[in-house]
């Protein structure tokens, strides 16, 4: 069993790979190469920082969505679907009313990148996509299923974990955290047209990384109005919230995930 680690810089963040496999070195290298290529392909299509990307062209009104690669329509539809599922709290439209699906694209690209590793028969790994984590289904028990959740910056000046959860023997394979931790206010309350500021940080544990990531953002945006949303997804997620008064709340099941170490 070879342990492998890889750091890939993409979408302005670090994607950290960590895993174990019986695969020969050459095959492993190929698997990682294809996996990170999926990340970069997604970035090349959807980056709004790259002026020539299809999405930048769309934002400038130079092309219609029908003229762009099919994947753009797929992501557009996914954003619409999640917007409806979250009663509009997840929104891929910016406050200038342009299409910015980056919130969903990072999670989706991570899922595609993880699927690539699985196609090569790697079944024991984790990918940390800038703080959002996707575990493989068959990840071996022990350390890799323990996930630390950082404190928001306004609570601590260190990168301490506020708590550690263990997803071993659970139905959950993804953790996403949205917050102002290091980014300043970056989640927009599109319903009230203001920065979302009721919460400092929202962590969502879910079966898959897209659900975790989208709902962490949506719950953060909804703030004190998040109850309906949390209730709607109560059977699919566990949630940890730190509000602006630095009080910590969670769904009843979340505390069962906390690692007793």
């Amino acid at each position, binding site marked *: 069993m070879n342990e492998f680690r890889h750091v890939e810089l993409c979408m302005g963040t*670090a994607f950290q790979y960590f895993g174990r496999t019986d695969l020969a070195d050459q095959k492993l290298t190929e698997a990682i190469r294809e996996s990170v290529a999926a990340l970069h392909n997604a970035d090349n299509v959807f980056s709004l920082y790259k002026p020539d990307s299809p999405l930048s062209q769309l934002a400038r009104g130079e092309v219609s969505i029908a003229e762009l690669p099919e994947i753009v329509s797929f992501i557009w539809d996914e954003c619409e679907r999640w917007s409806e599922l979250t009663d509009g709290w997840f929104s891929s439209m910016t406050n200038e009313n342009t299409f910015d699906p980056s919130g969903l694209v990072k999670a989706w690209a991570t899922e595609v990148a993880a699927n690539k590793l699985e196609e090569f028969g790697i079944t024991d790994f*984790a990918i940390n996509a800038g*703080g959002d984590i996707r575990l493989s289904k068959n990840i071996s028990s022990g350390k890799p299923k*323990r*996930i630390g959740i950082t404190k928001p910056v306004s609570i601590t000046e260190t*990168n301490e974990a506020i708590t550690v959860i263990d997803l071993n023997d659970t139905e959950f394979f993804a953790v996403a955290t949205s917050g102002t931790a290091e980014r300043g206010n970056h989640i927009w309350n599109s319903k009230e047209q203001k920065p979302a500021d009721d919460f400092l940080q929202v962590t969502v544990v879910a079966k898959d990384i897209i659900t975790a990531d989208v709902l962490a953002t949506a719950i953060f945006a909804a703030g004190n109005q998040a109850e309906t949303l949390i209730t709607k997804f*109560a059977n699919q997620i566990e949630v940890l919230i730190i509000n602006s008064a630095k009080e910590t709340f969670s769904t009843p099941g979340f505390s069962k995930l906390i690692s007793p170490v």
Partner: protein
Amino acid sequence: MRKSSQVLMGAMTLASVITGIQLGAHAKPSGFSPSPTPTDNNTPTETPVPTGSGTPTSSPSPKPKPTAVSVSHTSDPVYYRYGVVQLTVVKSGSTITDIRLDQATATNGRSSAFSYLVSLALSAQSQSFDTSMMSGATFTTDAFVQALDNALNQF
């Protein structure tokens, strides 16, 4: 559905769906505790012997030589949203013996996070350390990982 309807029975306030919990007791499991940061900043490095006509250097001190030669490499400066990170990694054989922060700045008081990241990296002996499993960290950690990756790739 049962779980959902139980939640719905509560009063429609945030606190009814989600309960306040105390996390403090579990906040520092061993896997995520920083190991003590090495205090010895004088880890020997592979200093090139001066050549040419410079002033004669003092003869090597008689102190015992370390068992393995230490080699250090310095990363490129990594500029990120809140500052810059540049670090030097000292390795003895395959072991990272020290990580020195040559530049480590961050606004909002984040700079103190770097010493914590250093201790994590030293205890884990790799750029992946336990941030592999940290949900929520972003820019400062990313910049640190990038600098560490850059320095390690020079070995």
